C-alpha cells in the first residue's frame, strides 16, 4: 500500500479528513522552505504539496505567482527540490510529499526524471498543465516506479470525461473548487457540494478540494463533503511577509493558520 493510501485509510478509521498544504520550494529560500514544511508536518499536516516554481505559472493567482517569483530568484533546480524532499522524508517517512508544478520543468530532466523521483522518495506528482489525453506515456513511466499521478477535476469536466480520468488515476483526486486561478474567492454552494458528492459516487479514490480555501469555516464546509482540503495561497501570502530577522514570527503565524484549519476540519 502506498503512503498516500495509508494516510487516507488511517484518517478514515478515525473518521477524520486530510489537511494538505501547498507551499513553494525555495520560497523565501530553499533552507527556509524546508523548515516551513518540517513545521507543517510537526503541526499534523497529512500530505505536503511541494510547489515547483515556474517562470510562467499560468494557473496561479497573484499570491502564488509571487511565491514562484521569489523562489526563482534563488535559482534552485528541480534536483535541489527533490533532494530537499529526501532530507525531509528521511525524518518523516510516512508523510507523503507530492510535487506540484508545470510540465516544462518536469520535462527538463528528460528520462532521468523517473529515477530521480524514485531515488528521492517522491510519492506523487500533480502537473497542472498535463490533462489526461497528453499523459499516457508519462503515466506508464510513473506507475512503473509506484509514483502516483494525481489528477485534477474541475467544475467544467464532463461526466464522461471524469470516467476516463478515473480509469487511470491513483493516489487521490484533486477537485478544483472554482472556475479560476489559485487563491480566487470561493463561494460555497450546494452545487459545489453536490458535485463533489456526485464524483465520490463514481470512484473509490479519496477526493480532496482545493483553490480558494483560506479559513476554518470554508475548510470545514468543504471537508464535510470530501476527504480533505488543500490550502495554498493563504500560506504563500504569509510566507511572502517573511523577514529573515523574525523567522520565529513566520513560523508562529503559519502554525496558527494550520491549527485553526485543523480544528475546522476535525
Amino acid at each position, binding site marked *: 500500500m502506498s503512503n498516500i493510501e495509508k494516510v487516507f485509510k488511517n484518517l478514515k478509521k478515525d473518521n477524520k479528513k486530510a489537511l494538505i498544504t501547498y507551499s513553494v520550494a525555495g520560497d523565501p529560500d530553499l533552507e527556509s522552505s524546508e523548515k516551513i514544511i518540517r513545521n507543517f508536518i510537526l503541526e499534523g499536516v497529512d500530505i505536503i504539496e511541494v510547489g515547483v516554481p*515556474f*517562470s*510562467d*505559472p*499560468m*494557473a*496561479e*493567482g497573484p499570491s502564488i*505567482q509571487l511565491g514562484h*517569483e521569489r523562489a*526563482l530568484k534563488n535559482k534552485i*533546480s*528541480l534536483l535541489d527540490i527533490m533532494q530537499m524532499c529526501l532530507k525531509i522524508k528521511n525524518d518523516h517517512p510516512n508523510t507523503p510529499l507530492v510535487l506540484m508544478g*508545470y*510540465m*516544462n*520543468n*518536469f*520535462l*527538463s530532466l528528460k528520462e532521468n526524471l523517473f529515477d530521480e523521483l524514485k531515488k528521492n522518495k517522491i510519492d506523487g506528482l500533480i502537473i*497542472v*498543465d*498535463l*490533462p489526461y*489525453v*497528453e499523459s499516457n506515456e508519462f503515466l506508464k513511466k510513473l506507475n512503473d516506479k509506484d509514483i502516483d499521478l494525481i489528477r*485534477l*477535476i*474541475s*467544475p*467544467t*469536466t*464532463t461526466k464522461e*470525461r471524469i470516467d476516463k480520468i478515473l480509469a487511470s488515476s491513483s493516489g487521490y483526486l484533486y477537485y*478544483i473548487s472554482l*472556475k*479560476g*486561478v489559485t487563491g*480566487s474567492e470561493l463561494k460555497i454552494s450546494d452545487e459545489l457540494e453536490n458535485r463533489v458528492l456526485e464524483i465520490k459516487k463514481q470512484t473509490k479514490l479519496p477526493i480532496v478540494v482545493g483553490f480558494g480555501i483560506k479559513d476554518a469555516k470554508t475548510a470545514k464546509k468543504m471537508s464535510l463533503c470530501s476527504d480533505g482540503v488543500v490550502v495554498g495561497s493563504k500560506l504563500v501570502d504569509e510566507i511572502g511577509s517573511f523577514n529573515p530577522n523574525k523567522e520565529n514570527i513566520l513560523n508562529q503565524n503559519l502554525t496558527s493558520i494550520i491549527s485553526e484549519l485543523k480544528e475546522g476540519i476535525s
Partner: protein
Amino acid sequence: MSKENYDFPDKDGRFGEFGGKYVSETLISALDELECTYEEVKKDKSFLAEVKNDLETFVGRPSPLYFAQRWTENLGGAKIYLKREDLNHTGAHKINNTVGQVLLAKKMGKKRIIAETGAGQHGVATAAVAARHGLECIIFMGDEDIERQSPNVYRMKLLGATVCSVNSGTKTLKDAMNEAMRDWVTNVDDTHYIIGSVAGPHPYPQIVRDFNSIVGIELKDQSRGLFGRYPDKIIACVGGGSNAMGIFYPFLKDNSVDLIGVEAGGSGVDSGMHAAPLSDGSIGVLHGMKTYLMQDQEGQILSTHSVSAGLDYPGVGPEHSYLRDSGRVVYEAATDEEALDSFHDLTKTEGIMPALETAHALAYAKKIAPDLDKEEILVVNLSGRGDKDMANVAKVEGLTL
C-alpha cells in the same frame, strides 16, 4: 514532402510530436467546444460566405501583389514582390484571423472577447471586430509593449476595448498570454479567447492558420495570373508564426517553392539576446503546446529580446516546429540592426513603411536577392504597416518626435 500526405494537425491536435493541448483541466471543455464548433462551421456554406463577405467589405481583400521595382533595381538580383497585408483594414494580416474567430465566438454564444497582444496589431484587430459585433472586449498587453506601441494602445481604447496592463514576468507578449489564460479560466462560460497567432493549445494553431491561409490562396491566383507560375521563394517573418503559416500553407505541397521563415535575431543569435527559438532553442511545453522554446536547463522560459514587440516571444507555433524538423521550411534570423536598415530602405525606395516585424523578412530578402538570378521571383509577405513603430524607431535612433 507532398501535401497529399500532409494532414496536420492529427485528431489529437498534433503536428508530429508538436502541438497538443497542455492546459489546465478547466479549459478542456472550452477547447473541446471550440473544436466542435469549428469542425461544424468549416463545412457550413453560410458561415463561409459570411467570412468571405467580411474579408472583402470590412478588411478590403484581396490584398494586392506589388512589384517593388526600385528596390529590386537597387539590389540588382531577383525580382521582389510584396504581398500587401499592410493595406488591410487595421494595417496587418492579424485581421484575417479575428474576422473569422469573432464569428466563431458568436456561433458559440459568447458575449465577451479577450485577447493578448504584443505589437498591438492583434489587439487592434480584435477590438475592431468586437466593436463591429457589439461584444465586450478586453486586451492584455505587457507593460513594456504598452510603452513601445503606444499609438496602438490608444487605438484599442478608441475602439471601445479595455486594455489591461500586465506587469508580471518579462512584461511582454508571453506574460500577456499568461494573463489572458488566467482570465479565460475565470470567465470560461461567457468568454471566447481570440489567440492572435498559430500558437497555444489545439485547435488554435489550426484555426489561426486556416483563417490566414487566404493570403497564400490569393498569392497562388495572383502569381499564376502575373507570372504564369508560382514564385521561387516566399519569405515571411515569424513571431508566433501566423502570417508565415498563412502564406506558406497553400504552398506546402509545391516543392518548387522555397519557403523561408525569418525569426527575430535581436542583437545576434550568438549573443543569446534574441527571440529565435527555431534557430537557437529546444523543445518544451508552454502556453498549451509542445514546441521549440527559449528556455534554460531547468525548463524556465528565458526573457527574449527584439526591437519588434510582435516578434518578442520565446515560443513559436507548433506547426513551424514540425516544418523546421521536416525540412520543408527553412528558418533564418535577422538582427535588430538589419531590420531597422530594411525598414528605412523600403520606406525611402518604395514609399511603403513596413512594420518592424515585417522588416525582418525584408532584411533577409535584401541579404539574398543580390545573389539570385534576375529571373527569379521572390515574394515577401508584407505583414503590416509601420505607423505604430514610428515613435519606437525614433527612440532607438536617439530622436524625439
